[in-house]
């Protein structure tokens, strides 16, 4: 399934909400949680990460990975947390609006 425009940022922010994660981990997590619906390729994941970092919503930090490779872990900043809440609100508003439209009768 193709990602809706603008949703990648939301997915990434949500993925790192609970614990810091490296790039491959984020892609894996999105794929697992969405039950394979969204597959994020490196070609779009890394530009998104850099963009979010520039905005100050995530912060990158080098740390050893689970199998002892040096990896860059991204963690949500305070600004990122606020942004995530905002994006979530927007998303729910949009989905409920879509639902009303699709489920309306006549």
């Amino acid at each position, binding site marked *: 399934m193709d990602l809706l425009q603008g949703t990648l940022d939301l997915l990434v922010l949500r993925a790192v909400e609970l614990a810091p994660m*490296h790039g491959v981990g984020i892609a894996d997590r999105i794929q697992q949680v969405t039950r394979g619906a969204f597959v994020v390729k*490196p*070609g779009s994941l*890394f530009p998104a990460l850099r963009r979010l970092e520039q905005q100050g919503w995530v912060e990158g930090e080098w740390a050893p*990975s689970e199998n002892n*490779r040096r990896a*860059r872990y991204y963690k949500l900043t305070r600004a990122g947390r606020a942004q995530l809440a905002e994006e979530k609100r927007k998303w729910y508003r949009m989905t409920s609006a879509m639902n009303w439209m699709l489920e309306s009768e006549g």
Partner: protein
Amino acid sequence: MLRRLDNLFDYLFRRRRLEDELDEELRSSFDMIADRFAARGMSLSDARRAARLEFQGLEQVKENVRDSLAGSSLHAFLDDTRYALRGLRKHPSFTSIVLITLALGIGINTAVFSVFHGVLLHPLPYDHPERLVIVWSSFRTAGTARAPVSGAILGEIERRNRSLAGVAGIWTITRTFTGENPEQVKCARVTTNFFDVLGVRAAPAKGRTFSAQDNGGPAIMLTDGFFRRRFAGDDSLLGKSLPMDWENTLVGILPPDFQLHFAPDSNVPADVQVFDTFDKRVYQGRDQYYIRVVARLQRGVSMAEAQRDLDRVAKEIGGAYTEYATENLQFRLAGMQADAVRDVQPALAALLAGAAFVLSICCVNAASLLLARAGGRRKEMALRLSLGASRGRILRQLLAEGGVLCLLGGAVGIALGWAGFRGLIAIRPERLARMGDIGLSWPVLAFAAACSLAAALLFGCVPAIDTLRLDFMATLRTGGRGSPGCGRGRIHRHTGAALIVGEIALGFVLVTGAALTARTLAKVVQVRPGFEPRRLLAFQISNEMFNGESGNTVADWEARLAALPGVERVGATSHLPLDTDIPNWYGPFQPEGFDKIQAATLVADLRCVTPGYLAAMGARLLEGRYFDPQDRAGGRQVVMVDDLLARTTWPGQSAIGKKMLAEHATGNGFLPIQSVVVGVVEHLHNHSLTKKVRGQIYVPFEQSRRSPLTFVVRTSVDPLSLAPTIRKMLYDRSRTAAMGKVRPMTDYVSREISPVSFTAVLALVFGILALLLAATGVYGVFNYQISQRRPEMGIRMALGAHARDVLRMVLREVGILAAAGVLIGAAAALLAARWLATLLYGVGAFDPLSYALALLFLPAAALLGGWRPAGRAALANPAELVREE
């Protein structure tokens, strides 16, 4: 916002680090993915290949990341610029030709616009100068629409107007500073509100300007420059009396940048050094028209409203004074700045237009060169397009190239323009003195930048558009070269042809303009002004020193001058020809046998002269005799007239012995006195080298004394070499008299010529440049086209055409383009001619010789430019040419 700036900063200056981090992160991610595949039991190499597939190209990912970051577009721009610079460096001859062409165009425009701006656009240095106006009067016997007013009229304008915030009057006289080095200076006599109307205050802590109580009092003001030079800027002199031939009290010093800006025919020179106030009775004078009026419009009043208001005032004055009613008094308003520059405005506008033409030609040339190069790079472009470069990206690169060229060309151009401007200042006519005060200012720089930008758009876009239309498949198939007859090649050739035609047409207009102004200059230089200006010294002395006591007369002084070694003849006059400092003296005259109505429009310039004057000037006697010492006060009243007056007043008759009422300066003011004509001289050009303004009447000085007198000394040696001797002679005679304006007569003549030569020099530069540019333009375009059409030439020659035929074919194409250009250019030149006519003298605007010159030179330049490419085509080996295909 701050964060964004921070990021931009990071991006620009820590790019290395960011790139390294990205590299490492991507590599470790790649490894992780490969690890995962390996963990599923793949071999190491299979795992890596699978990871690579997953990644879809490391470089591609990096490129995506870079594009997503702030500052990336800036970076792409820098890349384009760097690429353009590299490309330009690789073709130094192409680059330098384009740069020189552009720099010339921009430089010439910068220089000419500096003059234009400094003289015409830069506001006068007064308070709200746009509200300052000059009021000219016209009346029946004025003989001009730009006449001064009488004191009574000035008073009436002030009283009756409803649109002016202030009305001031000015006229100039000469005064002498006595003491160690007696010095004669120009003095402006003004109404006490003069500086208030201009909005000028005294220099800080240097006294005050005039106030109403000063009217007719001894108060004087000095200019800063004169105060410093003569009195060493000694502030303790304020409030004191200075050694002068006039009772005075120094009340204030004007600010250093203060200057008067009046038209030359206002007779208010710019180098006035002293100001004093009019007599108390000035507003009662009814019959002397001498006051120049400057006024300030009330806030919010337009020029047209004020003009209507003054029309009403004129009518009211006519009702109150019968003499002004019969004179049909009218007023005309003119903006002060426009009025001051009206005589130079047409020439400067024409020069600016000429400069714009040169810039257009330069752009056309640069465009054709870039087009030729773009043509040569079509294969490269096509290859890049087919490899996936977007058209936008290629367009951006071409425009970056244009931008870089324009920036460099603009910078060199401004430098050139500045140098050119310094050169123009060196040859500037006195009338353009103001251009030196301003120099390179922001408006000039902005103008130069606008020129560069316009140039970039004009010539940068042509190759870009050409590239946009590029059909890259076809181009790749034909090896990057439009084959003969193929559509692409033809469009390309048409663009080049249109550029050449345009260039030749513009050049034609410039060359005719240059020829016309050069011929005008030649005619003006040859004009005989009615006297012989060489070896003639002129200087002014106010004749208070000639008190008439024995041995202290003008005749006695002249005799002493004549006795000096090196002196041939001596004379004196009240008004030296071509000297605009002294207000002209002219008035009505009534020949015997003419009634008042017949004589109503007769006006002549009047001059009082000593017996030796006309002979010393070298004015030819046509009939009768010069004045002699017997024509003295109390004797028979005699006059001489010029041939213009004699011919128009008594056509077909001799003027000798005719009688007329002519104005004389007497102890009771100016009065008409019956006099008899004793001689006719040739017309002396009093006001302009190129115009005979009106007839002249000469009266003997002893019968009509005026002050000051200008002496002329005909010498057999360098005239200026006599000045120190004469000065010493004068000092020995009188401690209070001073000489002023000691100048060779040739100065006055060259001052008249210099605006013409200024225009002619610039026009010639334009014309020569136009020819050079036309030649190089044709060369550039044809050189390129020939190289594109080598196969065609080869086939023609292989089929039996001789080298001569190929040469003829190419030259015929040049000829056709030149003919088309000349036709369009001639039409444009004929249209421009009427406009140019005001600048010409002695040649018609449709002067056949000037057109013939352009007709000869432009095709010659075009053929010269086409000759080498044609020769190259003709000398090539046909077998090789065909094989290339």
